[in-house]
């Protein structure tokens, strides 16, 4: 159960090796110490995450999860929900490849869409059913400001996040009154291994900043947050810039 202070007892990290997912578990490790399920592809990265979280004194289990293998999602999430209530589920998986390759290489474009959108929709439907049945639970979906106004420089990634964003906002509306809820998180540029080697954009943040914002967002029952918060204003402006002008902006 999530208590009155917004602290969960169990945490399901889908894409559990993502820096942000791990940071979220770390953020709660110091206070409510939830049970953590790291759902990710098996391998050294997952082992390292399990070791790190266990080292913080958390009870951790790892399960095999492949975002692209959507057929396996319903059974996996049902099984996990049967073992213990899912208090907070974090949809944290995603890919960000080279943008110029992404729109010209068919396989790369399809891979982005499969993981970032199709995979997210697939687990979203399953998690929606679970929290409805439980009568409680928060689904945290990691979107991106890149999806809020899709731009030329990374439109494959951006459009896949736009799809995810729209789906999870809609899911949150559909779940109203069910006890379950959705928190859509729109970070700006996050300095993680996914963005390694890229020039940080203005207002860039760390995975721990995103994690702190998620912890606070869950506590105050937020439905949509930007990280950092001022991005909300920036994006609100950018959304309304005419296309002819938008394409000339250095974004």
């Amino acid at each position, binding site marked *: 159960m999530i208590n*009155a*202070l917004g602290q969960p007892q169990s945490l399901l990290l889908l894409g559990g090796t993502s820096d942000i997912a791990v940071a979220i578990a770390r953020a709660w490790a110091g206070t409510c110490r939830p049970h953590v399920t790291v759902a990710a592809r098996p391998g050294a990265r997952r082992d390292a995450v399990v070791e790190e979280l266990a080292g913080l004194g958390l009870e951790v289990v790892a399960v095999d999860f492949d975002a692209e293998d959507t057929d396996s999602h319903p059974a996996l999430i049902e099984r996990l929900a049967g073992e213990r209530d899912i208090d907070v589920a974090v949809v944290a998986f995603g890919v960000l490849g080279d943008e110029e390759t992404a729109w010209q290489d068919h396989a790369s474009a399809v891979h982005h869409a499969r993981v970032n959108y199709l995979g997210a929709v697939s687990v979203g439907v399953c998690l929606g059913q679970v929290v409805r049945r439980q*009568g409680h639970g928060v689904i945290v979906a990691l979107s991106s400001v890149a999806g809020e106004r899709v731009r030329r420089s990374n439109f494959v990634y951006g459009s896949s996040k736009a799809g995810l964003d729209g789906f999870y906002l809609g899911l949150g509306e559909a779940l109203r009154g069910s006890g379950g809820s959705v928190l859509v998180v729109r970070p700006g540029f996050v300095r993680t291994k996914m963005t390694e080697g890229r020039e940080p954009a203005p207002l860039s943040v760390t995975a721990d900043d995103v994690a702190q914002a998620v912890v606070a967002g869950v506590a105050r029952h937020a439905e949509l947050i930007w990280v950092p918060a001022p991005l909300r204003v920036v994006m609100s402006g950018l959304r309304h810039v005419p296309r002819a002008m938008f394409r000339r902006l250095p974004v």
Partner: protein
Amino acid sequence: MSDRELLTGWGCTAATAARVVRATPDRVAEELRTAGSRGVIARGLGRSYGDVAQNAGGVVLLPAPGSVRIDHETQQVTVGAGTSLHDLMRVLLPEGYFVPVTPGTRFVTLGGAIACDVHGKNHHRAGSLGDHVVSLDLVLPDGSAVTVGPQQDPDLYWATVGGLGLTGIVTSVVLSLLRVESGWMRVDTDRLPDLDAVMDAITASDRDTTYSVAWIDTLARGRALGRSVLTRGEHARWEELTGRAVREPVPLPGDPRLGAPGLVPPHLVSRPTVRAFNELWFRKAPRQRKDELQTIASFFHPLDGVAHWNRLYGRQGFLQYQCVLPDPEGGRLARILERISAAGHASFLAVLKRFGPGNPGPLSFPTVGWTLALDLPVGAGLVPLLAELDREVVGAGGRIYLAKDSRLPGALLEQMYPRLDEFRAVRARVDPTGVLRSDLSRRLDL
């Protein structure tokens, strides 16, 4: 999903959805027998602050008011468990009776009051509600009905008293009554400058006082730490009535006259507003006043005059932290108050009271010592403060009141309630498959 409802406790935190069913006598056993994996819990009028009467994804039974039958010979009443203390008092007072124990609100049901083993301002003399029950009718998770009491299956009876609804559904209660001559209270009020003064005053006078409670200004610091207004009361006798009380010797508690608005400005309950309120309230109290006549409603249930006062805390809600520091650890009160006032969380008047000895209920809250209760708006910063308070309480061998809890870390439960095993043993006997469940029982693994 249309029969589902979002429910919270009085603190308006952590809403969860459940199927709600009116607990008419024919439905109770049926719902228990056909319960799904997420179980069933009974709910009264929703005055518990936390999640004790919520059941995410399961069934929540809502109270069905029952009959009230007074037996004048034994001075006992038989009352349906879904009846509120409000309704019960309105029947009892004209007959010259009062309930043996009343909490700070009368908008609670008898069933809920037993599940929380409620206490009142007379705990130091009278104990809690469970000490005044003759017997209870209980529907067990398998659908069978039993009658229990201190003399009939005492293990099950005492596990039910304070058992948070997890041993069965109480359907009817036989309660010993208190004889009173009027509906008025004779009240003494004393304004006390600091914590030592109030603790000394309570210790000195409790033996000769039926009802006593102190309201503490938790924002006062330094030399004023713990400054309080102590009120003590006795049921007024006929010959003590004067003025309006003579013309109207039995004023009945009424329905709330005011209502909090549905929408309140954010941060209405914040440090500056609370500081101003507490200051005013402390200054307006007389330094000392004797033998003032107050109605039962205004003496026992001052907040019941305002419907939905819980909404004043806004969308994020609030919680109540009530702990008891058993003797001889009362000295820790000063440390606890220092932490609260230093943290600066806006807490309206906290309540300080001295408990008498506890009863045999393994999960019953009261135990001889000092109890402090404070309302805190939910917000960042509460997490470390409450962790510190928990440490103080556990260090004192004390506990917090589960009926009001919405956030206790499960690891501390066994330290606070060392007789948890006895409770679990009874639960294993009457509810081996865990039909009775609540958000609290899930959260604390009860």
